[in-house]
Every structure is written in structure tokens, then in C-alpha cells.
């Protein structure tokens, strides 16, 4: 069953010098209980998608076109009240740990209780507190720390508490935006394991946004690779990471270091473009200046989606 369907979403930012397209014609679908990973380097628009789904974008962002269908109804058309009702109850978020996602002058427990009671004012404070205790046990934080202030928590604990809060209303979908970035490897590993376990236990769908392909590969069934606002390759994780076809995906994988050395995929050494990018028509492939397998026609013609298998496609004119 399709839980979330995004059609032709484009989001732009207005800056002093003009508008910049951050998300360009993105479409994807997510089934109930599945996990989707969005990978890409900084500035590729992956966070903008995550925020755009809940309409949490800053004031200077503009959704230019598209539809975000959640269980069939378009979030972009929701009234403010309906949107506030949807947020957290149906779709919640796990923020980056480095972000100061907790209000520093309120106790952590109060902030979780607030999330619970805002969506169901009928729950008494004491009952909500019991709920928080259950959540804390689930994410392995001692329950006597519930009413501590955020600055009394360690980085990993703050992040686990965020996970607890994300679960507090039993949502259908969780958007996790770089949830393990800026944490130590060991803590990062614990957080990832927790997210995986919870996803399985409650059968929650997850959109997992990260720059770290290793982490995404660990968590997600389906992968979308983004580059300069566009999805360039999408498919099952075994397809995208084992047999990448888009030259950008290949270069991304070839620069990923593992304990066994560099991944096996790269056959091209230093990716070098055979083309100079000076006269590139608008709408053509963004990766062209760095693409080792580009041809002159790439500078004038827009890239096309190529289906490699039923689930695996890439946005490139020349991939097998």
C-alpha cells in the first residue's frame, strides 16, 4: 500500500540575487513500513525535500510545483489546522544531533509530554508521563532522567530522546534527517541500530536522509541518489550500491572508504570530464562538468530516465 507519493516536486529558494532551485522535479513513492534512503552531498537538496514534506521550509522557500500525497490527500493543499494535526501524529521527524532540537530552558520530559498532549488533550499529564517512561525504556534511557534539562544529556542521549519523542504519537512515517551525523562512530552505530529495531517493531515507514552512504545502506531498502536538486539514480539498495549505473553514483561510491579499503566499483581513476562546461544548455545534466563518460550531445540535450530493471532507474543518457 502506498503511504506517501511525491509527484514532480520542485522547491526554490529566493535569495537576494534571485531564485535558486533546490529541488528539481522530484518524484518518488514510499510504501507502508518501508524505508527509503536519500543520499547526496551537502547542498544537493535532500534536507529541503524532508522539510518540504511537512511544509517546514523557511519563509524564503517556495514550492513551485508538485504534489505530496499522504494516504491519498495532498499535504500541500492542507489547511494550517489540518497540517498541524498531521505533523507528529502522522509524520514525525528525527533531527540531526548537532542541531539544537531541544529547547534549552525546558525539561526534556516536558517537551515530550507537550508533543503527546498537543495531539490528544484528553491524556492527563500523569498518563503522558507514563507513556514517556515506556518510550524511555524503549530507547534505553534511565527513566529518572526524564525531567532533566537538555544540557544535562550527552549527545547520544539527546538523540535517543529525540527518537523517543518521534515515536510518542505512533506516527506512520518518520523523517530522519542526518540522525547520526556529528556523533561518534560507536554512538552512531547504536542510534542506527535503534532506528532499525524500532522501524521493524512498529512497522513505521522511514525516510532516511544522509550524506553517509554506509549508514544509508545499513538502514534502507530503497535508495535515491540526489545530485544538484535532482534524483539521478534510484532503486533497491542491492541494485544502486552493487551495480551503480549513473556516473555520479559511481564516483560517490568510489570515494567511500571502508575498513577493507576502497570499494570495488571504481575502475576509473580520478574522474575527469572530457568536456568543458562553458556552454551548457539549461535543464541538461548537472554532473556534466565532472562526468567521465559524457558526450558532446550531453551539453545540449536533457538527460532521460533509463530503466535498468523494474525497480532500478537512472537519469542519464548513456548508462546501460
Amino acid at each position, binding site marked *: 500500500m502506498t503511504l506517501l507519493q511525491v509527484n514532480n516536486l520542485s522547491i526554490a529558494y529566493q535569495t537576494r540575487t534571485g531564485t535558486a532551485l533546490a529541488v528539481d522535479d522530484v518524484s518518488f513513492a514510499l510504501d507502508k513500513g518501508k524505508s527509503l534512503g536519500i543520499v547526496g*552531498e*551537502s547542498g544537493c537538496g535532500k534536507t529541503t525535500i524532508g522539510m518540504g514534506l511537512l511544509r517546514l521550509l523557511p519563509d524564503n522557500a517556495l514550492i513551485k510545483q508538485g504534489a505530496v500525497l499522504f494516504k491519498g490527500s495532498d499535504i500541500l493543499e492542507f489547511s494550517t489546522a489540518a497540517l498541524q494535526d498531521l505533523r507528529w501524529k502522522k509524520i514525525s521527524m528525527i533531527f540531526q544531533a548537532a542541531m539544537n532540537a531541544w529547547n534549552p530552558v525546558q525539561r526534556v520530559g516536558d517537551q515530550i509530554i507537550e508533543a503527546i498532549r498537543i495531539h490528544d488533550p484528553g491524556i492527563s499529564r500523569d498518563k503522558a508521563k507514563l507513556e514517556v517512561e515506556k518510550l524511555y525504556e524503549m530507547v534505553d534511557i534511565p527513566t529518572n532522567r526524564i525531567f532533566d534539562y537538555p544540557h544535562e544529556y550527552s549527545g547520544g542521549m539527546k538523540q535517543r530522546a529525540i527518537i523517543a519523542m518521534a515515536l510518542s504519537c505512533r506516527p506512520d512515517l518518520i523523517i530522519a534527517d542526518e540522525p547520526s551525523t556529528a556523533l*561518534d*562512530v*560507536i554512538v*552512531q*552505530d*547504536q542510534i*542506527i541500530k535503534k532506528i532499525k529495531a524500532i522501524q521493524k517493531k512498529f512497522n513505521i515507514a522511514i525516510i532516511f536522509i544522509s*550524506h*553517509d*552512504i*554506509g*549508514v544509508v*545502506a*545499513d538502514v534502507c531498502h530503497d535508495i535515491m541518489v540526489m545530485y544538484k536538486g535532482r534524483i539521478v539514480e534510484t532503486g533497491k*539498495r*542491492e541494485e544502486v*550500491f*552493487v*551495480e551503480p549505473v549513473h556516473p555520479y553514483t559511481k*564516483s*560517490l561510491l*568510489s*570515494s*567511500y*572508504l*571502508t*575498513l*577493507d*579499503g*576502497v*570499494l*570495488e566499483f571504481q575502475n576509473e581513476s*580520478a574522474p575527469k570530464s572530457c568536456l568543458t562546461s562553458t556552454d551548457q544548455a539549461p535543464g541538461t545534466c548537472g554532473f556534466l562538468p565532472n562526468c567521465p563518460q559524457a558526450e558532446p550531445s550531453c551539453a545540449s540535450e536533457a538527460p532521460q530516465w533509463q530503466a535498468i530493471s523494474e525497480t532500478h532507474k537512472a537519469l542519464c543518457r548513456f548508462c546501460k
Partner: protein
Amino acid sequence: MSSSSRSPILQVEDLLKTYRTDRSLIKRSSVKLTAVNRISLEIERGEFFGLVGASGSGKTTLGRLILKLEPFDAGSIRFNDLQIHGLKGSKLKAFRRQIQLIPQDPYQSLNPYLSVFDTIAEPLIIHRMGNPGERKVRARDALEAAGLSPADDFFPRYPHQLSGGQRQRAAIARAMVLKPEFVVADEPTSMLDASISFTIFKLLSEIQKQKKVTFLFITHDLAAARFLCNRIAVINQGEIVESGPTLDIIENPQTEYTKSLIQAQPSFSFAQKAAAAT
């Protein structure tokens, strides 16, 4: 630890560094934080040595102590058989010429008010090396060796006109312009995207091979250390947990901490299995 016939370039013995947590003027609090706890290690000339640890493990502090950016409480650091404790005047200046730093976070590692040329030439001016013409030549060589060419295009630029990777290359050029024997690279790519940090790693290993420089590479990323270093030391809570040739440690870790560090590393096990199958 193997003691070679040649003396190591850096010998750290029994090094201790503590911080006071509460610095109040009125009461001297006795709460101390041990950042570096009786560490000993040796780095051989010309090797690429990795120091791997989580944040707060004391790895950056150790680097700063070696660079003589902070005083230590006990122990000794010998660089080229020279005690660096208490170095002053011309001896300190000579020491400063031989050991350089490539810092973390390229967005903050360059002074925004200095052009690329001024940044790279500054160490030469401080050490009164060469006339303006010679300085320009040396700066140009350093910048082009760091992969920013033609150098004259980059000289007049200011940091905000460079991308993150370019800034880090400029920072590398600045460190290399004095032709140091020893370079401390403190998480030089932690703020950069994977593809860019990969090219920076390649640049560092090239420099090390060509110029016979000794590198101390400080990182939280075991995979990066695996890629660059021939020997590593794993540091946890101010103590060296384990050290030795990189591959030995990764394949055959001796301590629990190292084991958990290796296990926590995101792996492509499914990918490798599939790749092996095809």
C-alpha cells in the same frame, strides 16, 4: 614497539595533560579533567601515523601538545631529539619551522581578511625567508603542489571565494610552504563531503611520498586511517589503547574498545557479498 637504528622523529613519553573545569577567580576548584593520561608513543621518520579516537578522547589535545600550542603537566615530548618543553627564542622559531599544522574545518582555517597569497606567504615573512620575489616563487610552488593551479589565479582570492576543498588545499599549501619535516593533520576533512575528502587524502599521501614528510593524522574515522596510514594508535579517554601496523590492528584487534570501534563502522557487507557472487 620496534626500535629502529635511526632515532624516531618524535618521541612522546609519559605525557600528562589535565584541565581545570571550573575557572573561578575566587575559588580554585579541584575538579580536574585528564585529557591526556600518561601517553607514550614514537613516530618514525617518514611514516604516515594515524591517531584514531572518538571526540573527547584527547586526540586533538595530544596534537596540540606536540605542536606546542599548549603546555603539558608532566612527561616529555622530544622532536628530533630536542626537548620541546621550555623552548624559547631562536630555538623555538627553528622548531616552529619544522613542524606544521593542517587544521580541521576549512571554513575557519583561513583568516577571512587575508588573500590566499598573504596567507601562504605569512610563514615565510615570519621566518624572514627570501625576498618578495623568492617568496612568490615558493608560494606558487606550494600552492600548485597542493593542486590549485594556476597559482596566480588563486593568489588574489579571499577564502570566501573558494570552495571547501579549495580552502583546505590552500591550508595545506600554507603548511607545506616552509618545507616542514613533520605535519600534524587534525581531521582535515571532517567538514567536507566524502568525494572531496577522498581527493584531499590522495593529495596528502602524494605529498608524504614525494617530500618524505612525516605525518601525524588525527581522525575519528578508522576507514580513513586504513586508507592513509601505515601505523595507527587507537586512543580512548586520554589513553592509548592499542598501537601498531594499521592492517594488524584492523584485522586482529586486541582490545574491546578497538573491537567495538571496528564493529560500529558502517559496512557494505551485503554489497561485498553480492559483488563476490557476480
